[in-house]
């Protein structure tokens, strides 16, 4: 019985953590380029609403996800233009984008006939593998019961890790984020790299937002991210800009978030308000120790610093 509870809570942790895994891995790319994208929360909301809109219109969650990704990438270009080309303060831009994304997504959601907020989506992502394999011991529920987006998020995490540390462009990305002046002198296109990775980060946040409406909640409502974008930003820093660690952190976060559910199954009774802050405390403590033990900081040294070639 307790094994069943453990496995079920891990499965819930995976689905709760997936939007954070997607948005956070994207944010790793953006931050590795030296741009601090605090606007993730707003970008996710744009992905959520556009994805839901297209899915209710076409009946295809895949079409919804594609549009969510594209719309969010376009939305993140606001950050690109302001933070990279116009060298605005990235903290201000990021916070403003959250507010703007929230307002814009609510506006989009109030449009149409009937308005999006009152529509129901018949079409959502469904598990990839047939029901029969879900019951295989352990691996069934843990590895084989998921929808395509979860598998995509795993692939994305692996690709990000490989890309950052094992490819030429990834090396360039790290150089641009640590020291844009040196990267410039080495002939790398600093602004181009930053735009590209802001867009990739935006796209991934859009996928994370789309997952909320196309699977996790199967519905759209105002400000439905409820802080997940902020959590993604926090976990990126605590995971010291490594996507594999971020995956673990996001799932740990998901697991502790769903602890209330687990404890209910076990028949315990703990105030939910207390449980709500528990994930932050635990993830903080673990990651602080992990990153303190690290010999060499991975933090992009030029994070949140605009680059201007002729500055003297």
């Amino acid at each position: 019985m307790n094994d069943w509870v453990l496995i079920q809570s891990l499965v819930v942790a995976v689905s709760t953590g997936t939007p954070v895994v997607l948005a956070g891995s994207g944010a790793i790319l953006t931050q590795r380029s030296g741009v601090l994208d605090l606007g993730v929360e707003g970008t996710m909301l744009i992905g959520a609403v556009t994805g839901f809109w297209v899915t209710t219109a076409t009946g295809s969650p895949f079409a919804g996800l594609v549009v969510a990704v594209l719309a969010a990438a376009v939305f993140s270009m606001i950050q690109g233009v302001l933070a990279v080309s116009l060298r605005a303060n990235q903290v201000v831009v990021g916070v403003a984008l959250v507010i703007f994304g929230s307002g814009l997504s609510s506006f989009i959601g109030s449009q149409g006939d009937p308005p999006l907020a009152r529509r129901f989506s018949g079409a959502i992502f469904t598990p990839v593998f047939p029901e029969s394999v879900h019951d295989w011991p352990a691996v069934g529920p843990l590895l084989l019961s998921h929808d395509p987006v979860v598998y995509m998020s795993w692939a994305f995490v692996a690709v990000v890790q490989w890309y950052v540390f094992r490819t030429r462009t990834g090396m360039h990305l790290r150089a641009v984020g640590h020291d844009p002046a040196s990267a410039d002198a080495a002939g790398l296109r600093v602004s181009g790299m930053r735009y590209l990775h802001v867009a990739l980060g935006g796209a991934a946040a859009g996928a994370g937002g789309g997952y909320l409406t196309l699977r996790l909640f199967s519905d759209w409502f105002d400000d439905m991210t409820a802080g997940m974008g902020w959590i993604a930003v926090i976990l990126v820093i605590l995971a010291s800009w490594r996507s594999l660690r971020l995956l673990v952190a996001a799932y740990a976060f998901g697991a502790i978030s769903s602890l209330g559910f687990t404890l209910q199954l076990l028949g315990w009774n703990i105030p939910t308000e207390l449980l709500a802050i528990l994930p932050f405390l635990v993830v903080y403590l673990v990651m602080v120790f992990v990153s303190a033990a690290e010999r060499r900081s991975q933090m992009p040294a030029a994070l949140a610093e605009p680059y201007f070639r002729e500055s003297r």
Partner: protein
Amino acid sequence: MPQETELAVRTIGISKEFFGQSVLEDVDFDLRWGEIHALLGENGAGKSTLCSILAGLYHPTRGEMMLAGAPYSPHSPHAALEAGVGMVYQHFRLVEQMTVAENILLGNPDVPVRMTASGLADRAREVMDRHGLWIEPTRYVADLAVGEKQQAEIIRLLNRGVKVLILDEPTAVLTPREAEALFATLRNLADQGQGVILVTHKLREVQQSADTVTVLRSGKKVAHQGVEDTTTHDLARLMIGEDLAPGSGVDASHTTGDKLLELHSVSVVSDAATRPELDDVSLTVRAGQIVGVAGVSGNGQRELAEVITGLRTTTSGTIRLRGEDISSQTIGSRINKGMGFVPEDRLTRGLVLGLEIEDNVLLRSQRDREFSIGPFLRLSVIRQWARRLIDRFDIRGVRRGLPISVLSGGNLQRLILARELSRQPALLVASEPTRGLDVGAAEAVRTTLKTERGRGVGILLFSGDLEEVLGISDEVVVMYEGRIVASRPASEVDVAQVGRWMAGLT
């Protein structure tokens, strides 16, 4: 006039303005293949600007450039690099958080898209073998010594196919031995047919290493000649525009007074496993005396300056200022008891670059009665005071409403000295007060120090420039591995002797 093809680089009438202010005016400059060409001038003469234009970092306001006989107008450092022109900046363009191999191969189109750390290291080794240079490729740049970083930077540029190598004040950060190694490397490259431009304000380096010299003054070219056809004296005159003041020499006409600063067996041990930063250091500075501390950088000078000024705590021993034990007093109370400090890294510890001059001269004096009424600052008094300091210390380039980051290095240093001396300290601790300054500015700083000594100020001078230490000190102290290995009157020692002490020989 030489044939166009013999010329690596030719500029014709290059001018550059920053915000309407002319920095370079109508400069013609020729570089031949296979020569080391020194670009000489005071701070602010336009040397760095000219090089930045050649390297594609700035665009000229007017003028044309040729590279190997073909028109050349790089729109970015990348384009310059592609064309074969690379620059070693004063601040290396190396990513500290990455390895030597990664840095050398950064931006290299030949690096495979998929790569491993060991593959990169092998490739970097190949590059280094080809040019006869060596830095362990798997080390992180942050862990390298300055000279090694510079070598890595040169290797990086050579690997990009650079044919014209520009070095901006390359020896400013090097020990004498590292500088010699650098010049050997450069000569070797020139012999291989590279064109090398060496930006410097050190006359000795021109004589020592260059074939040809171009002198810039206030943005204009004032001379271009073979090094063999000129003398240090000529170059100095061309560079400054007037004859240098006669040599300093020891001024014997002053008397020394009471003990101001006394250190007794001061030690600093931060990690029991390594050798102590300071080991049983005792020294005395009297009123009206300059005590010069010589030593190869990293032998405890920084730590010594820091324990005296209170930036670092002692592990054992006592520090007395005018007889009073100040070992455990705060920085603030040491300042109030008459200590002035010119820090080594003046840009980060000495000044707040983003603030105006009024705010900067007020640092350390912010609580003085003269400048404040309760919590309120008396701005007009402060402004007048700042103006007096500007006049007295000849600080140039100050503009109302602009932060002091617009000032040149020499003027920033004068500003720090002005601030510290205006408080009329009994004791001045000066770390590398002339580093990075040109001949004229450095001489002005030394004159100021001597004047203050005449007024009875005790000065503890830390300097990597041995001639400076011997030139103006009354007493010379030599540090080696955190200990004081010699302490003599300056008149009783010579450069060779002090050099041996600095190297740990007796």
